[in-house]
């Protein structure tokens, strides 16, 4: 059983069309809504955890894309920039899901994107700006692929 966190962007032309229920119905995927936001008439964004076999997750994502949903992997949207991180650990006490945690006894910070719900807390607390693009619901967030 695999798990992937994805950001779904529903552009205005499809934003009121029911699509997600079919992930369960047709693909037997377990989905868990981590966060959602609708900008009326403009765009809807959902942060979704998908659970199932690797294969069906991929098929489910393909299905969403065929239905004109923009699918972005959270791991491409949120990441820890290692050159900026000093492994202080200031973020670890505020991360609500332990996606950021201290590795002991080395006392280094590790980031597990599969636990991340893109709440943005780490971006607020990190003194060095090491957590990138955690504001998923900011339409101007660029994502890793466009950043360099």
């Amino acid at each position: 059983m695999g798990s992937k966190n994805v950001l779904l962007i529903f552009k205005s032309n499809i934003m009121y069309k029911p699509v997600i229920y079919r992930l369960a119905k047709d693909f037997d995927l377990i989905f868990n809504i981590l966060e959602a936001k609708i900008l009326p008439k403009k765009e809807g964004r959902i942060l979704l955890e998908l659970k199932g076999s690797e294969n069906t997750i991929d098929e489910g994502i393909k299905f969403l894309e065929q239905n004109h949903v923009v699918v972005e992997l959270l791991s491409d949207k949120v990441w820890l920039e290692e050159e900026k991180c000093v492994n202080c650990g200031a973020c670890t006490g505020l991360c609500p899901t332990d996606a950021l945690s201290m590795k002991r006894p080395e006392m280094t910070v590790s980031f597990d994107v599969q636990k991340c719900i893109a709440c943005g807390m780490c971006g607020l607390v990190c003194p060095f700006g090491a957590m990138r693009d955690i504001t998923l619901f900011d339409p101007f967030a660029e994502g890793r692929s466009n950043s360099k």
Partner: protein
Amino acid sequence: MSEFKINKTFAEINKKIRDGSVVVVNAEEMIGVTNELGPIEAARKVDVVTTGTFGIMCSSGAFLNFGHSIPRIKANKVFINRVEAYAGVAAVDCYLGATQTREDDPLNKVFPGRFRYGGGHVIEDLVSGKKVKLEAFGYGTDCYPNLRHEAEMTLKEFPDAWLLNPRNGYQNYNCALNLSKKTIYTYMGILRPDATNANYSTSGQLSPLLNDPYYKTIGLGSRIFLGGGVGHIIGNGTQHNPNAKRSENGVVMGGAGTLSVKGDLKQMSPKFLRGASITGYGCSLNVGIGVPIPILNEEMALFTSVSDDQILAPIVDYGLDYPQGAGGPLDYVSYAELKTGEINFRGQQVITSPLASYSMALEIADILKDWIKSGQFLLGEPQDTFPSVPFSGFNSIK
């Protein structure tokens, strides 16, 4: 007759550094050495223990001489990348403080402010070799007629650039939590209400002054690792207070001793000098410091083998007590407990996170160890000691 069985001098240890026979361990390794051999044999075997710390140190800054312009200027206002540096000294000298904010920074007007660029960031940019924009304004004198001088400069082009920090390396510090009913944004990080989380900020058993609690070997003239280069301790820091409460092992139970340090910025590296933006509080600078401690006798072996479970930090409420300058420690907690990520406070589980990087502190201690082993870094014998308090000695050194 010395009270100790082992007696070494700085000169003897430096001789060993020169001939390559010196034995150096970091302060974490020293715990094991002393446990295994006992303090006397540990002192016989080990010559130097290296310490390290890497954390936000607000009382830091750069003393810069930017060179004379043509015609000359007596600057009375200086900005570097639009961050003001204090210019009330000689013509082209200035002091750029780590927490100085940029001229157009919105500060906390939209709360909490993000403080994205300030003095600490300018210092990081300088040591990274980046070009900075210097603007100097004068009022014109017969000897210094120029009213305005602008230049794009890199660190190399400053005739002199020192890191000059009035207070660094606090010997122990508060563990901060928040007993109020709203989230607060402090220099000790973001603290949620009702003591939901707690932050602490020293490298504990690796921290310089916690390994020499009575300042017996650390003093004015100690040669140190500073920001990736070689620097010196130039005295005790501001707010140095040896009279702080101490536990039986002599370790202070709160902020006590401090260091004032100086070093050539041109030797330093952005890895160990990092500009910091602390949401809701301001800008600052993360400074990496490593201090070597000579094991002159078995007492120093015992001091340097202090471990996290023997060092207590005071728990302080930053919701009401600290800002009002009222109240005192609510309780004490050991660094060993703090490092587990959770402490018990008044029957409640509280999440803890560090603000100083232990892994970087260890890296600094190990770099310093390598410098000493390679023979290139000799110990500086203090020319003066810090104010201290008497120590009655360990009850039994066996």
